[in-house]
């Protein structure tokens, strides 16, 4: 039976695996994916970033940067987070989104810890890296979780719609960590739709989702609720193309917590970059140990 620590490792490995799997087909349409790969179902690298197989992208790297800033600072601190993101950007990462780059640049030049609220910040760049918040604030009250999410998101993305979507993903991960079922996760997704109707996902199949968080989560929720295993969920979502490494990463963190680490295909874990995998598993445990639920508070 999966312990809390197993599920946390599952979530973090799921994130990394989803990122690496989706990266191969990022920016491709479903038809292009079929023409080149048939059904894409293995960690083969390549893609527009020409990755060696098993390599992760900014989705996993920013999560690790956020998590290590929380552990070093002993809490969710916007300045420590901004500094960690800036250090990460200095390593010349394999990819970095425009909105993330602008936010970090504002921090470097003016010390800005929260970018101004902006209709253009509804991209998925803050959601893709939210797993450390889900782990560290497990057991905390709703307002603390929401505030921690805002602190990390607003370093680069300040948008009410995106905040709501990211908060729901955090809640879904936390519910799954605590052993709740897919049915209960569905309730959380429906709560989001009730509060923000744009997020509804019961109409047309979302294919080729863009970076707009509404489209990203539509693909994630459709794939999650249409399948019954980690592997079928991930294969479903990445073959929809579009921002596939990010839909893969977000679905991977939810499904990894839900189905547990043993549900992640051996053949994927075997190819996943060893350094990243180790960092993910270590950090999942460290963040849990420091969380409200485990450390008390």
């Amino acid at each position, binding site marked *: 039976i999966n312990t809390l620590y197993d599920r946390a490792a599952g979530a973090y490995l799921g994130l990394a695996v989803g990122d690496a799997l989706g990266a191969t087909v990022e920016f491709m349409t479903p038809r292009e994916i079929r023409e080149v790969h048939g059904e894409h179902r293995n960690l083969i690298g390549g893609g527009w970033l020409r990755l060696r197989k098993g390599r992760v992208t900014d989705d996993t790297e920013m999560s690790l940067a956020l998590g290590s800033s929380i552990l070093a600072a002993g809490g969710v601190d916007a300045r420590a987070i901004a500094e960690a993101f800036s250090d990460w*950007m200095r390593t010349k990462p394999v990819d970095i989104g*425009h*909105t993330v*780059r*602008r936010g*970090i*640049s504002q921090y*470097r*030049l*003016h010390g800005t810890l929260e970018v101004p609220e*902006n209709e*253009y910040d509804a991209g998925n760049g803050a959601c893709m890296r939210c797993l450390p918040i889900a782990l560290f604030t497990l057991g905390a009250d709703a307002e603390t979780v929401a505030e921690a999410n805002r602190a990390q998101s607003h370093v680069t993305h300040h948008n009410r719609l995106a905040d709501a979507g990211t908060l729901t993903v955090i809640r879904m991960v936390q519910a799954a960590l605590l052993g709740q079922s897919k049915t209960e996760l569905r309730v959380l997704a429906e709560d989001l739709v009730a509060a923000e109707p744009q997020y509804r996902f019961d109409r047309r199949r979302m294919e080729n989702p*863009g970076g707009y968080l509404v489209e990203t989560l539509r693909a994630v929720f459709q794939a999650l609720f249409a399948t019954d295993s980690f592997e079928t969920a991930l294969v479903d979502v990445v073959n929809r193309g579009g921002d596939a490494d990010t839909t893969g990463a977000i679905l991977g963190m939810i499904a990894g917590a839900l189905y547990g680490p043993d549900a992640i295909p051996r053949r994927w874990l075997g190819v996943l970059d060893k350094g990243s995998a180790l960092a993910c598993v270590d950090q999942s445990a460290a963040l849990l140990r420091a969380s409200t639920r485990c450390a008390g508070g």
Partner: protein
Amino acid sequence: MKKVEAIIKPFKLDDVREALSAAGITGMTAIEVKGFGRQKGHTELYRGAEYVVDFLPKVKIELVLTDDLVETCISAITTAARTGKIGDGKIFVSDVTHVVRIRTGEENEAAV
């Protein structure tokens, strides 16, 4: 928004790009151009004879930026591109009224 154009010596392009990247500025467009100014042209061998070509190859970089980044941009370019010898080049700043990112339709601050 502003457009910053800089005419620089070609071998300085990498140094200038590094200096700009420290401020998070990585998007730009570069063009090979011929510079005429106080720096004299070079001599070239052509069919065995040496003759003076009175222009020098330069690189022109164009960056469109939000207003708050312009000062940083100018000092990064100036520091990185300067050798102190004639012909180091010039920087021109002008206004841009509208920017569009073709791929997404994003506009202005969100497009640069």
